[in-house]
């Protein structure tokens, strides 16, 4: 019986489908907080909205006023480089801090997934921010498995514990560039929000028993989180998730092609078929 089950779940029984397009709350391929090494090759533009509660916001300390709306854009520049821009808007603090923090980062695909090897992605936030509350650098590996009971997508990653920021009191880019451990940021820079996002090892997986949705589960270096997602259309994903079962949050994400033809040409070609 056990052996039968094992064979059931064995990889390589069926064709591997790499088109996993669930995203994390920053609009990058991933689970809930954590990124994966999945790559959205066909739909190069992603636009994502997420709402996180104050207790589990990317901003610390955990309190109501840190609840945040994240607006993110992902642009697949090439088949190996992606650019992401996120704006973190805290509605309860908007009068004091304005539109909020901006986060620009890159993802580089170092290895494509093959039958026996996971995909590997490097995520990098260019140093240069005066307040790097969302900055994160990581390496993550992802493997897809297709079984008879559904699709699985597993990831394991490591986030750098170091953080770069610009000290405004010093002149010149390299002079003012400072390195600090994420865990020590609040001691050294009490003015700053703490940043403990992806500080150390993280991992997650998703399971799609059906074509139109699935479950996600992850450890994001601080908490265990779980969620459900629905693929409403090829271009629209809806996700609801819980942090440690204590607070809920949600994400809407859309994905579009950039290499499309003009409407008139598309229509004409469609009519020809």
């Amino acid at each position, binding site marked *: 019986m056990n052996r039968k089950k094992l064979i059931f779940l064995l990889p390589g029984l069926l064709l591997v489908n790499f088109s996993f397009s669930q995203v994390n709350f920053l609009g990058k391929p991933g689970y809930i907080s954590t990124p994966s090494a999945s790559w959205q090759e066909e739909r*190069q533009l992603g636009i994502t909205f997420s709402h996180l509660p104050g207790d589990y916001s990317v901003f610390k300390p955990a309190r109501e006023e840190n609840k945040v709306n994240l607006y993110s854009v992902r642009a697949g520049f090439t088949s190996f480089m992606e*650019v992401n821009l996120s704006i973190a808007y805290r509605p309860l603090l908007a009068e004091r801090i*304005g*539109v909020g923090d901006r986060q620009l980062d890159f993802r580089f695909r170092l290895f494509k997934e093959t039958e026996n090897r996971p995909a590997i992605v490097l995520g990098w936030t260019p140093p*240069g921010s005066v307040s790097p509350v969302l900055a994160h650098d990581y390496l993550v590996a992802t493997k897809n498995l297709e079984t008879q009971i559904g699709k699985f997508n597993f990831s394991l990653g490591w986030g750098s514990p170091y953080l770069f920021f610009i000290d405004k009191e010093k002149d010149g880019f390299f002079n003012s560039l400072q390195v600090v451990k994420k865990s020590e940021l609040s001691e050294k820079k009490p003015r700053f929000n703490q940043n403990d996002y992806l500080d150390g090892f993280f991992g997650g997986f998703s399971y799609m028993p059906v074509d139109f949705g699935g479950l996600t589960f992850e450890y994001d270096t601080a908490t265990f989180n779980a969620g459900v997602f629905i693929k409403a259309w090829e271009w629209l994903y809806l996700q609801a998730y819980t942090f440690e079962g204590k607070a809920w949050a949600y994400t809407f994400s859309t994905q579009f092609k*950039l290499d499309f*033809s*003009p409407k008139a040409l598309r229509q004409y070609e469609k009519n020809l078929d």
Partner: protein
Amino acid sequence: MRKIWISLCFFLLFLNGRSQEVEEVLYKAGFENVMVKSEGEDTIKVFFEHREFRSPYHSMRYAKLLLRDVQDKNIVWAPLYHNFPIGNYNAENYNYRPLTKEDKTFFKRNNSWFKGYRFHFRIHPNFAARFGFYDQPFQTKLDIILDTRLYLATGLSIQSGIRIPVQNSLDSRNSGVRLAPSLLHCFTQPVPNHFFGISLGTYYYDRYGWDLQYRYSPLDSRWSFGLESGLTGYYRIDADSYATGDLSFFHAVVDAEYRLPFENLSLKLSAGQFIFEDKGFRVDLIRQFGTVDLGLYAANTNVGTTAGFQFAFSLFPGSIYRSQNLELRTTEAFRWEYSYNNEEPVAKSYRLGIPRLSNILRQYNARFIKSLSN
């Protein structure tokens, strides 16, 4: 002998009928100024302009499909931009050949810069935004521009229209309807692969004056080189007033651009004096998708450092209304640039109201067109 003459006449009529049919089919589908030149027995060269699509690859592909049942000769395309031919592209493999003297003579003789075109009305939004200021997080300004371009002579056109303010929390402009940026523009290729765009007019960023662009761009090469220069000043048009400053800002920026051998990426290095008279350089990485371009850039001049991104695409849906003499459409190229540094204007350029020469010619590069056709 008489019989021969009669059959020759019929043959010519037949040929003429065929090329007229080509012209009609294409014109109906939005192509303009269509001219058919016979090149030997089995090849025709079709000159055309297509203003709705951003990429000439799409217009050539569209034209080929449209002519599928009309004629069966080999086709060479000679797409026009602003009433001037760019070059020759083989319809089968998109191989590029520069314009010949013969092409130019034919074009000059047959070009109908007035009759060959519809009246185009183009809708495009003008959007400016600044974020991150504490007292007002999103400062934005949105105008809708409705403009048109008329050809006055070969390659020479005038573009003008109205600007309708929709929303403004960015500057102190009032909300009256006013003249959109307007210019007299000359586009020409006097020697094959040497392109010029010269204009006089009012531009975006509140500048007016002279603008000169030159580009050496062999369209089958990975390399191209250019110069953008101009003498400009500030101007301000409101619904009821008009003011100009001195023509005192000079800019001259040279660039070299290289098309990387993968994924339609181009790397462009520019250096010189930019429009706020700041001196320095700028590096652009541009990815072309066809209708969409994405760009990343970093710049350093003596006023500061910045990095950012830009994108350009054709606005949906394209053509809204088309008749024999009139077309209403959305812009073929909406461009937006974001600079991380929102305090100092580093390595800026104003928008002309028409795409810049480097952005146009990048679309006509045969290597790019071939990669799209594969």
